[in-house]
């Protein structure tokens, strides 16, 4: 039978130790509040803010009404308008998630003929979202057509049949959506957690004092540390690329070079976060907690599970300063879509800017703590 006095003694000691550590208190209370706020306000699986581009002839009244209904529904936002010839391009450049191409002779005529000439193109990188988009479009179109045509002589509106074209993930497999993002997440975990813990380990074990008194510069110590774990992260991420090919048949359409390029840019950010964490953490345990505090919101606001488009605008800026968000966007673009250069630049530039800012901040803080 365990003795109550012993349990009480441990309880008293642990509480005293935990509450004496101000950083630990911050972590204990900050993490659940952050999670609650994120899940309550920002994160939702509901498919919203779908950017849609409707292509129709200027005089097509029914098509115009349908477009209006899309936007009024609250699920859709207008995407950049496209010409008839380049609608697949705006999907590959991520300017629209769906493109509805109405026939040039007018929608009404086409519906009367059986409506097979209406084409709906969907970016299916996220398969769940693609299915929802297709359902939304079909429902709104059917409703609008039946409302608009209820006064026709026939009395009943003909059913709307769409020629749906699923792009980038035609079999709608969620593995295609998740695995490129997982490369990024693994790289992030390796670089943030292992580098942070390894730097704190030097401090905790007292070896750091000897290192900084040696004829080495702070940059050399930081590079020596971060380089090792970056290489490890690369090895694991690239072995996942091979695994993804062997197990799921996923190939890197944009080529390994682009993948390597974007991962290298990302590593500057993640290592800088690790350096910053190590300046706050005195022990490996604190570094581990600190890494989780970063990784958890970074993961939730990266688009790995919850689409960033669904986050309310007032909270979306957090995702826009999250390096993992740009990495995952870039990885899905490279792996599934072939790595369009414009999208690559759109993700690499903010990633590089965030990385530089974090690096300056992290190293400055690191220097001030020596």
């Amino acid at each position, binding site marked *: 039978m365990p003795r109550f006095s012993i349990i009480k003694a441990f309880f008293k000691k642990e509480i005293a130790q935990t509450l004496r550590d101000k950083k630990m208190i911050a972590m204990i209370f900050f993490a659940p509040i952050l999670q609650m706020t994120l899940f309550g306000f920002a994160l939702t699986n509901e498919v919203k803010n779908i950017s849609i581009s409707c292509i129709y002839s200027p005089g097509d009244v029914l098509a115009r009404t349908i477009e209006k209904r899309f936007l009024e529904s609250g699920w859709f936002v207008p995407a950049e308008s496209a010409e008839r010839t380049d609608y697949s391009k705006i999907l590959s450049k991520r300017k629209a998630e769906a493109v509805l191409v109405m026939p040039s002779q007018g929608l009404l005529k086409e519906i009367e003929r059986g409506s097979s000439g209406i084409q709906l193109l969907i970016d299916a990188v996220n398969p769940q979202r693609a299915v929802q988009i297709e359902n939304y479009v079909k429902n709104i179109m059917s409703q609008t057509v039946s409302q608009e045509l209820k006064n026709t002589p026939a009395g009943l509106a003909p059913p709307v049949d769409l020629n749906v074209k699923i792009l980038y993930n035609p079999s709608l497999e969620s593995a295609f959506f998740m695995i490129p993002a997982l490369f990024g997440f693994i790289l992030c975990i390796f670089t943030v957690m292992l580098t942070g813990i390894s730097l704190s380990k030097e401090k905790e*074990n*007292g*070896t750091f*004092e*000897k*290192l*900084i*008194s*040696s*004829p*080495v510069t702070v940059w050399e110590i930081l590079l020596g540390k971060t380089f090792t774990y970056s290489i490890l992260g690369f090895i694991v991420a690239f072995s996942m690329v091979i695994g993804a090919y062997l197990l799921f048949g996923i190939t890197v359409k944009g080529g390994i070079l682009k993948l390597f390029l974007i991962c290298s840019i990302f590593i500057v950010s993640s290592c800088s976060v690790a350096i910053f964490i190590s300046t706050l953490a005195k022990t490996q345990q604190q570094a581990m907690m600190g890494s989780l505090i970063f990784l958890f919101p970074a993961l939730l606001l990266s688009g790995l599970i919850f689409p960033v488009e669904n986050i309310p605008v007032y909270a979306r800026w957090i995702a826009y300063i999250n390096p993992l968000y740009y990495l995952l966007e870039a990885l899905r673009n490279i792996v599934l879509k072939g790595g369009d250069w414009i999208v690559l630049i759109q993700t690499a530039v903010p990633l590089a800017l965030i990385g530089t800012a974090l690096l300056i901040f992290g190293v400055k803080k690191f220097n001030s703590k*020596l």
Partner: protein
Amino acid sequence: MNKNLISVSLTKVGKKMLETQALSDVSLNFESGKIHGVIGPDGAGKTTLIRLLAGLLKPDSGKIEYFKSGNQIPNTLIRKRIAYLPQEQSLYADLSCMEHLEFFSNIYNMSKKDFKQKSKKLLEMVGLSQFADRKAGNLSGGMYKKLGVICVLLNSPDLLLLDEPTIGVDPLSRRDLWNLIHGISNEMTVICSTSYMDEAEKCGKVHILNEGKVLASDLPGNIKKQFKIKKIEEVFLL
């Protein structure tokens, strides 16, 4: 006094650590080529002094100057010539003795040939040759400290700073460590802090600190004459 080795001069050095005035108005001369003992009880300011000398801390007031062959060396250049062994454990428990020497030889940018010769000599000198492949975490307290010392000696420094190297070490290992320090003292200036008062006798010059102030700084014999005492520790009883 060996003029080719480093000497250090402290003038009215003061340093506050958090709320405590760790050192106040400390003026000391560490002549080259000698073993200097910085002696004092816990909290006397020994570690702060050693860390200031190693350049890990900057003084709040006063100045620290380093000289070689009579010429002052800029503080930025001195770091390459100083070796520092902290008081706390400073080795990687999961690396072997040889792996430690290899790591530090890379940090000191030594050639492979030079590393091979020196590491062999140093391991032999401290009697660790047969334990070269043993992990630091599995070494005894005395062997651990010896490994720490030889890691910093690889660089052939001009100034060796040892912060309480004999703390927590058994008497035999303490004797070995002092033999080691005496063995290298003609090649470098050694400044060694200790709270063991009997170790003062092993030093060429003794600097006694108490509550951040200098109580005495002279040859052990002169201090005993000055204070009319038989043992150095009696200074604290006066």
